[in-house]
Structures are given as C-alpha cells and as structure tokens.
C-alpha cells in the first residue's frame, strides 16, 4: 500500500464513466457502452475499481471484447486494478438505448428500435412500423427475424429498395 496515494489520485466514478465513453461495441462501433445502456455501475473499492455491465443477449460474443476494452482503457489511465462484473438483472432492454445512441444508429444505416420493448407483443404481433434509415419510408418488409448479430433483424425498404438492419426491441 502506497501511503496516502489513494487520497490524492482516486478518480471519481463520474470521471471513470467519462473515460469509459471510449469503449464501444465491437459489432456496432458507433455505439459506446453508455449509448447501449449496458454500463450499469462504477464503484471505487478498497482493492480497485469495480465496473458492472449487463449483456444485451445471453450469448453476446461482444461481451468478452468489451470487458477487455474496459480493463485496457482504465489501465491506460493509470488504474491498475479493475474488476468487471456481469449482472443479468434487471435484464437489459432496448428501452435503455440512449436518444443519442438511436440517432447514431440511424446515421449508421441501422433502424433503431421502434416503440417499447414488451415481451408479449412481440410473440405473434407485428412490430410497430420500422422506418427505412436511408429514405425514412415506413413501407418496409421484414425479410428475416435474425440479422448479422443477435440484436438485429433484416428488413427491406419497398420505396428505395435498400435492404437494412433493424435493431429489434427486446
């Protein structure tokens, strides 16, 4: 223990949160973990910093990369001891996607989730109208329930004919 060093140097959780805005989702690199809403808690503890995140999907392969990136980012800022915990509850929902995140998705060519995530309604009902991120038309058709990653479905625009990804509600 270096006497007194933690009194002077300990960065606040807000500061750490700011640093962690550099960490992005490797599968949708325009989104930071904060935009996604998966960064749940940051705590200064006696034995280092503890960051808590929640997975978007149970089998999301990006989680490992995100954990490593969190550790790397904080190490680079001089925080040697970083622990990343994963919690399942409350379960992540697309409702936590920030407004900024939704705008970034649209600009990136991915339609953001339409409406609220509601377990039951997705079962058989059709989702709300999904607007084409290219031309804004709501005349779109779902071509597959699953896209290039677990969080997306595939759509096609009937006006501009572009195929596009839709970040589906969960």
């Amino acid at each position, binding site marked *: 223990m270096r006497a007194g060093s933690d009194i002077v140097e300990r960065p606040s959780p807000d500061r750490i949160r700011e640093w962690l805005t550099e960490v992005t989702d490797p599968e949708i690199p325009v989104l930071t973990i904060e935009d996604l809403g998966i960064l749940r808690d940051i705590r200064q503890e006696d034995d280092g910093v503890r960051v808590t995140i929640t*997975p978007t*999907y*149970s*089998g*999301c*392969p990006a989680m*490992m990369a995100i954990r490593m990136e969190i550790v790397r980012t904080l190490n680079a800022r001089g925080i040697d001891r970083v622990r990343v915990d994963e919690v*399942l*509850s409350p*379960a*992540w*929902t697309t409702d936590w996607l920030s407004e900024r995140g939704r705008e970034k998705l649209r600009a990136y060519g991915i339609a953001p989730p339409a409406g609220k*995530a509601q*377990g039951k309604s*997705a*079962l*058989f009902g059709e989702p709300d109208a999904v607007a084409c991120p290219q031309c804004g038309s709501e005349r779109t058709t779902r*071509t*597959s*329930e*699953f*896209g*290039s*990653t*677990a969080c997306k479905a*595939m759509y096609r625009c009937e006006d501009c004919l572009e195929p596009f990804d839709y970040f*589906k509600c*969960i």
Partner: protein
Amino acid sequence: MNKLEQQQFEYLLRLGDSDLILGQRLSAWLGHAPVLEEEMATGNVALDLVGQARSWLGLAGEIEGAGRDADRLAYFRDAFDYRNVLLAERPNGDYAYTIMRQFLYDAYHYPLLERLSASADERIREVAAKSLKEVQYHVRRSSEWVIRMGDGTRESHDRIQAALDDLWMYTGEMLTPDEVDQALLETGVAADLERVAGAWHERVREVTAEATLVIPDESWMQQGGKQGRHTEHLGYILAEMQFLPRAYPDARW
C-alpha cells in the same frame, strides 16, 4: 450437497444441458443452411441457447460448490451425466426436421421460462427473465416456418409432417414431471410442468392447424434424457463438442 441442493443441481443441469445440446446441434448448420437468412437465424438461435446454457450451468456449479464452472460442466462430463431432454439430441435431418424440432422445443421453452421468471429462487428468476426475451423471437420464427412449410408445397408439407410424426414421441418427457420436478415445484423453485404442458399443447394445436399438419395420435412416449439415459446420438455430439478442451485441457482464448 444435501438432498434439496442435489435436486436443484439436477434441475439446473436439465435446463442448461437441453439448451447446450440443442445449441450445439444448431451450430452444425453453419455453412450449410439452405438460405443466407436462415444461416444467420440458426446461428443466432444457437448463440442464444449456448449463452443461456452458460448461465444455467454456472448456477448449477455454484450450487454444487465443488469448483466446477460452466465450462467444466460442459466439457468434462460424459453422456450419462448429461440431463438434456432427448428432443435436443435428435439429429438435424433435413431442414424441415430441424425446424420442427426447434418449434416443439420453443413451444415448451417459452412457457417454461415464463413460469421460471416467477421462481422462488432469485437467481433462477434472473436467468429466466433474461432468456425469455430472447426465446420470444425463437418461437415466433419457428412457428412461422412450420406454417410456411406445412402450408407450402406438397414436398415441404410431406417433409415437415414426417418430422412431426418422427419427433412426437420425444415430446412427452419435457412435459411430464418426475420426482425432481415435483419436489422443486413444492418449494416454489421449479416450473409447474402441467401448466407448461397446457400452453405447449395450445400453441402446437394452433400452429399445426394453420400449417395444415396432423398431430399424431396419442402414443407411447420415450423418456430418459432427464435422468441421464440417452440415445446413441449424444456421445457423438459430445465427442465433437468436447474434443478440444479434452485434448488440450489448458487451452485458453
């Protein structure tokens, strides 16, 4: 482990192993699926199931308290220690067979997780609530495909009807409680399989009717997976899935 912990451990293995084995089965379609969209869908469903399996097996390892984590349980148990339902280990067959197997499982999986989201055990509630969100998309997709194939061409109809006929006898054990299910139901931990069965029958009736398929007559049901008595297929699945960690036990990503 005391008796109750032993039963919880068994129960969690059933949940985890069923997801894991079906996920492993599905992943064998990667590179072979009939169309690109299905390639991705199958891969994503497989990934969800393996992810869920990791949560269930992690929990099983915690309860066992012998230092086995999810990987240890997945890679270092033999067939007789596996507790997956037999349906999950059925071979992939043609695509109609894979889709029907998926539908019969999803139609059980969804109401099962719904009930487990209200389990007396908080850790089970958490995993179930998370998984349920994912499985709603699984059951929607497989239902749509059953309808599309059943009410499609004569060829697709015949194939998916044949799949339903062949798989039917493997559906009984998922819906029939045994001693472990019963004991844990009494403590509020497990799902009430009678109610799960009610929801399952309703969905299967609804979807097969729209798909113009005929549900097989009541017949003898094969049991055993939940107790560790498996078909010869499981050994081959494990041989492939476990090869690397068994040959190179210290291998790391």
